[in-house]
């Protein structure tokens, strides 16, 4: 196995790890507040029932963060394995 092949495999493994972590976060934020909405709504934070807030706004903010983090981390991974191209 050549050096490039090893580098590419390591690159792909790092990508997969990041993707798995972020997908887990996505799944949690997407479905847990919906499932436990009743329980979460008993907590009120700054006037918001937390269950309602999560579905209406909280989850959306986390989605934005996930996509932003993914771009940042992927750029970093590409640099680490020497695959980054300036565009």
């Amino acid at each position, binding site marked *: 196995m050549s050096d490039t092949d090893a580098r*590419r495999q390591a690159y792909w493994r790092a990508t997969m790890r990041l993707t798995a972590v972020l997908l887990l976060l996505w799944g949690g934020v997407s479905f847990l507040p919906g499932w436990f*909405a009743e329980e979460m709504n008993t907590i009120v934070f700054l006037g*918001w029932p937390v269950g309602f807030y999560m579905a209406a*706004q909280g989850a*959306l903010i986390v*989605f934005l963060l996930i*996509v932003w983090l993914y*771009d940042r981390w*992927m750029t970093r991974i*590409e640099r680490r394995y020497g695959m980054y191209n300036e565009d």
Partner: protein
Amino acid sequence: MSTTPALFRRLGRYYAFYVVGFIGLVGLLAVAEQFGLSARWIGQIFLFATIAIYASIGVMSRTSDVSEYYVAGRRVPALFNGMATAADWMSAASFIGLAGTLYYSGFEGLAFVTGWTGGYVLVALLLAPFLRKFGQFTIPDFLGARYEGHFARMVGVFAAVLASFVYVVAQIYGVGLITSRFIGVEFEIGVFVGLAGILVCSFLGGMRAVTWTQVAQYLILIIAYLVPVTILSYKVTGVPLPQVMYGKVLQDLGVKELELFSEPRENEVRAQYRYRAEEYARKISDLPDSLVAERMGQVQRVTELRTQGAPARDISAAERTLRDLPRTPDEARLKWERVRQDSLARTVHPAPHAQPHPGVDQAGRNSARNNFIALTFVLMVGTAALPHILVRYYTTPSVSSARRSVFWSLFFIFLLYVTAPAYAVFAKWEVYSNLVGSNIGTLPHWVTSWGRVGLVKVEDINGDGILQLAELTLNSDVILLLVPEIAGLPYVVSGLVAAGGLAAALSTADGLLLTISHSLSHDLYYKMINPQASTQRRLVITKSQLLVVAVVAAWVASLRPDSILLMVGLAFSIAASAFFPALVLGIFWRRANKWGAIAGMIAGLGITLYYIMRTHPFFGGNMGDAWFDIHPISSGVFGVPVGFIVITIVSLLTPPPSAEVQALVDYVRLPDRIGNVHEAAK
């Protein structure tokens, strides 16, 4: 061709001028309104001015280059591609309907808010960068290359056209509604104005023209969405940040709801509706005798009024009632059943706005919860599988800009979706606290003006002269337009909102139309029927397909099909179960092969369609046959896992894909300009 940063600066300058110009136009109209310009004129100026803007962008961006026509030359900067995707994504339903859905469904409606945004996480993590690296023209292109041959491409074309066509009909239908209701032209004329608006953008310039008009349309639609509710928030709470402030209003609304639901007169009205429902149930079971009795009674009433010498107005009203009586027992059964259902719905209080998963008993609550989760899932996966969204990521200059572009798309979409619940809460607060309980003789003027077009209905069933909540009917499209009225804003703001709705419908229709015509001309004609076709001929075919599809879609829309909203809801399940498993496994699982993909796409799509037929009354099914009580709109919740399982099993039972395809998988996984072996071979 200019370099990317220079292009970016130039575009930024153009669109800044454009926004300033547009705000100037709105200001000018506002001044003109003070000097007596009528609402009708304001509406029409908005309609024609915005379409003229889109048309000039469309004409300026005309092109006869294949790469420009299909993927805008692959040099759309991430930020602008984000805006174009956002306009492409947000349809007439998001812009006009979502606020109304949230008003009526409260918490349950939030499945749309999380679902339609969370899908972009899947686009970013699982699809966009890899499709960009693959870098061809359509989604069936990927299926054809990855799954070796025409069969997978064919299934892709079928599902893309099926999902996109119903969606494009709904957009043109939406244009007809907006123009007829808010600008005052006839529905059919509105449909053809819409058709013209769509064609001037897409016909001459394809993706390139559509991209730049979509950016322009996004700017109008987001201004139109944010302005009214921001002003209202300032008036109600003193802070012009509706997204932050509606939490407080929601809390007050919760108190108001409890108060209203225990009000004696409110309960009296609900009891009267129960009597009415029972009365109609009796009338329906006594058919056909009850219809005869009804007619005789009404004839007698007319004669009585005549002999008494009653005022002409009363007589003609009685005559009209007589004329409007159902003609046949079958017609009566349908009509009366509708009245019975409507009255029955008014006998119970709506659920409190913030209450999740309402139901009469524990089983009902569980079912509501399961459906909420299933709908969220289907909307997310469907978002990540709609071809007209995915092709937008072919247009960015590089893999990393495709990633960044998803972030911008989600950001621009977020601005609207995070505001929609605020619209619902502010409108509900106003209706519950000010409108309900007021004197029916002195209701605000919009109640009468929208009452005339059937969007608002008031019936004083208990005759006390006071409006109770159960006596009021608001069409869900009205909620969005209610806000400028409540805030006491001049008509120019309502015209602006109509222009925003129009921009949302047109931009989505453009994107869908391109997807359909490209699937037919590029995938079906060029790749399968005539691979020797010259560039010239391919473009001619594409443009003629575009024309044909647009005219057919406008024709279908002008027939006003009842089922169109239902079909749009189903498009998500269809796209999700046909595309998502095959696309994702195609990138992440090297071993997935042709046979697996074909079997999986057909099985997933098949299960979804079967479940819809089995449970939806429109196709003769009923909910009694449902699995786990899941509604047909979420049928993809069965189709998607079946697709994944079948692809996996069938792939493992058949030989692995060729070395060439495995090299393609490696190629798409690596970022820009790496693994160029395949690039050279293309």
